[in-house]
């Protein structure tokens, strides 16, 4: 049951990565169905010319498609009215080469948003740009962060009521996390909310009413850290933002605290690994909740949250659903921040559940990393049960379609030396497949019944997003390069196509100028999971790429680098 937060009737466009402010990634186009999807064929392709990890969602506004590439963050505009969708123009932001040295997890970019005639997106070197959607001319470019401090930006901005919302990356570099709002017309700073430090910086004031007592108090962003560790405490917001126009609240999560070694930062480390509800006009915090207080495992809290109205215990509640990194699918009351349920969606050894009275994650002490000791069998691993890759929701089935992974890890934490501009992690990690041996999963989750409806196992982590249509078809891509279609109700595989490189992008569905339904996805392996290929890493070091290489030693044998847009349609 979808809520009024869904942005109205489907016009066949795709103007923001999550499709709408409720973040459903659901297309109500139904030309492609379970019966005819076997006939889906390649309509046209486009090579981006870049060969790092392609995580973006292509946008379709009117009859133009917009594609953002990984570093150097080119923006291509393609004319959908012409056969083969020729290039209209290219915008080159020329981000600083040095920013490649402070990007933790490949040089990805999660895409752009369209608003009021302009395309808005971020560049790796912490700038936000507004480009005229017709002409490709730069309207404004604003510097939002400092790469010499380890800040980069990889997220797709969201534009809400004339404000461009941007969050920083850099939890592995000891940055101070924030969410910034820029004026969509001028690019000038409207407000900035930090995620650590005193209340006045976090924009916590009289309106702030957190639901749980552990989140109540003055200047918790200072007192839950030793000394002034909050200044280098992480908590960026490099993931997904949702918006409820009725309640007039934005919802988004914060990243891991820094460093990964928790011994060095005793205390709950607010407001990292949590979620905020804020007023988009001025950034004032209305409520907040921490998924993982004093996070022990790099369980960033930045995943997507889908806004729905759900029947819970006989009442219809305004909720947000978050398949969280720490292994639980949370259902929160989005008016107050109350945790209504938290159910595991995979194998967990690090916690026993969430105490619904206190709201606190119940950790298992034996799995707590201790400096200088090796702790084994930590599940889910640092990328969590699910990382940034976004799920979709179908109002027809009422289920979430969650692309995720099944990974465990061993970790040894060590001495943490904060040297500005260098990584601040202090952990050696070795990841491997979880029980069952399959490193990837696509789960269809029933949020009312609070259990999985079906699951499809994949050899590699499913690092791409999913999209679901009114034709009851779910699309996603695998890291080997297969673009697949499943039956949304049964999970039965219906169709697949082998693209040139692993897929980690977000598929989109749109109506072309000719009235046909098209499915588009970027192929080009990379991201944290694909760094072994995108970065040409050496598999003999199990700790490379923060430990992910150990779990992906076979990836270079099944895919090479690439950078291609694939668009499919029925014949």
């Amino acid at each position, binding site marked *: 049951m979808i809520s009024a937060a869904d942005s109205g009737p489907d016009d066949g466009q795709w103007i923001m990565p999550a499709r709408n402010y409720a973040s459903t990634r659901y297309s109500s186009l139904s030309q492609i169905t379970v019966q005819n999807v076997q006939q889906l064929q390649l309509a046209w392709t486009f090579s981006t010319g870049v060969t790092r990890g392609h995580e973006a969602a292509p946008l379709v506004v009117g009859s133009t498609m917009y594609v953002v590439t990984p570093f150097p963050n080119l923006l291509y505009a393609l004319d959908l009215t012409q056969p083969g969708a020729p290039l209209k123009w290219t915008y080159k932001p020329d981000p600083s080469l040095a920013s490649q040295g402070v990007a933790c997890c490949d040089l990805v970019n999660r895409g752009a948003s369209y608003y009021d005639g302009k395309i808005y997106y971020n560049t790796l070197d912490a700038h936000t740009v507004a480009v005229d959607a017709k002409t490709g001319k730069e309207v404004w470019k604003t510097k939002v962060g400092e790469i010499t401090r380890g800040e980069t930006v990889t997220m797709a901005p969201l534009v809400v009521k004339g404000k461009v919302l941007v969050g920083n990356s850099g939890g592995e570099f*000891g940055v101070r996390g924030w969410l910034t709002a820029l004026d969509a017309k001028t690019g000038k700073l409207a407000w900035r909310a930090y995620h650590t430090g005193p209340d006045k910086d976090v924009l916590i004031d009289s309106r702030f009413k957190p639901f749980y007592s552990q989140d109540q108090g003055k200047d918790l962003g*200072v*007192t*839950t*850290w*030793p*000394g*002034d560790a909050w200044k*280098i405490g992480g908590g960026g917001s490099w993931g997904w933002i949702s918006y409820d126009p009725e309640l007039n609240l934005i919802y988004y999560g914060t990243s891991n605290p820094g460093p990964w070694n928790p011994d060095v*930062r*005793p*205390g709950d480390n607010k407001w990292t690994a949590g979620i905020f509800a804020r007023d988009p006009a001025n950034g004032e915090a209305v409520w907040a909740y921490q998924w993982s207080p004093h996070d022990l495992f790099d369980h960033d809290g930045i995943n997507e949250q889908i806004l729905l109205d759900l029947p819970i215990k006989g009442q219809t509640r305004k909720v947000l659903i978050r398949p969280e990194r720490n292994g639980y699918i949370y259902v929160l009351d989005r008016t107050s921040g109350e945790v209504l349920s938290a159910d595991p969606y995979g194998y967990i050894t690090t916690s026993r559940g969430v105490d619904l009275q206190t709201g606190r994650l119940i950790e298992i002490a034996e799995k707590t990393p201790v400096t*200088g*000791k090796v702790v084994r069998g930590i599940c889910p691993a640092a990328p969590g049960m699910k990382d940034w890759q976004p799920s979709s929701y179908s109002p027809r089935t009422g289920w979430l379609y969650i692309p995720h992974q099944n990974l465990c890890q061993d970790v040894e934490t060590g*001495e*943490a*030396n*904060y*040297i*500005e501009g260098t990584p601040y992690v202090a952990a050696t990690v070795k990841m491997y497949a979880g029980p069952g041996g399959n490193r990837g999963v696509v789960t269809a989750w029933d949020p009312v019944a609070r259990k999985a409806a079906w699951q499809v196992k994949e050899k590699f982590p499913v690092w791409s997003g999913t999209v679901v249509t009114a034709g009851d078809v779910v699309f996603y891509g695998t890291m080997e390069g297969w673009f697949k279609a499943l039956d949304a109700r049964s999970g039965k595989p219906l169709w697949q196509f082998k693209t040139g490189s692993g897929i980690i992008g977000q598929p989109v569905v749109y109506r072309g100028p000719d009235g046909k339904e098209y499915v588009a996805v970027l192929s080009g392996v990379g991201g944290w999971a694909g760094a072994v290929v995108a970065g040409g890493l050496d598999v003999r070091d199990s700790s490379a790429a923060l430990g992910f290489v150990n779990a992906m030693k076979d990836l270079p044998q099944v895919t090479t680098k690439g950078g291609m847009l694939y668009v499919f349609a029925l014949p």
Partner: protein
Amino acid sequence: MPVLFAHALVQQSYSTLNPASPQARLVDRLGDSMFITAAVVFGLVVLALLWAVFRRRDSDEGPAEDARREWPLRTSALVATAVTTAILFVFLILDVSVGRSITTNPGKGALQIRVTGHQWWWEVQYRDSLPKNWVTTANEIHIPVGRPVVFELKSTDVIHSFWPISLSPKKDQIPGDENSLWFQADSAGVYRGQCAEFCGHQHAKMAFLVIADPPAEFASWLARQRDTALTPTDALARRGKEVFLASPCVMCHAISGTPAGSRIGPDLTHLASRRTLAAGTLPNTRDNLIGWIVNPQVIKPGVRMPPNQFSGPDLLALVAYLETLK
């Protein structure tokens, strides 16, 4: 200041024969009683030996005489053995009981301090239930008089041993492990400690100070240590802060309140509040600080801090800044 420091040096007590805590006193008393007993026994043994050597011997004593002497001699030998065993048994009990009482956890209310051994300096951390109040310093440990203090002992590289000489017996710091010892200072004073396990080139110059303050003074010292370093008002010191941040210093040293946060070397946030440099090697004076920064290898060869090159004005500015870090 130099006069005060010289006085402090003179006041430094570092002898096991000068116990300054109940724990050290117990051990000292045990040692004294063992010494006295052993001295007495030694005296008796010497007397017995002398008697055996110089006793009058009649040349016409026959086997009957020898037989007559045999029983008292045998008895004395048996008695001596029995008494020795008894004495050793008494010592065993005393030993175990002293060992027990100095290791039994003093319970809640004790101050917890973590001391981590590095080659060749001591990282000292005061933990608190409120994380904001944690303090990290180096080489100088302040404790309140009359309150038990529990030390958690760790090491990051090789085996060191924490030995606050007049206050407590030593305990090893073993990498990968955690040990603890506790004691309570009887009276205010400056006590010198030493690393007691050979740990490399500069093991001999790895000393520390334990300064026992009256409780009120200790509380105010701890409160000052919790402060972050403020930007100095003096122009030369401000320039010195810039020199610090632009130099190799930030690769190893942390100063709270600045972007420098590396923990390879000692925390410098309150450097100027400490009485010695280089783990008790030098008094903390301006000249010594300059000499240390320019070439620590001359003072403590093998230490992990390299020689540094600064221009004259930069060096003076840097030292002016470091002197503001009280």
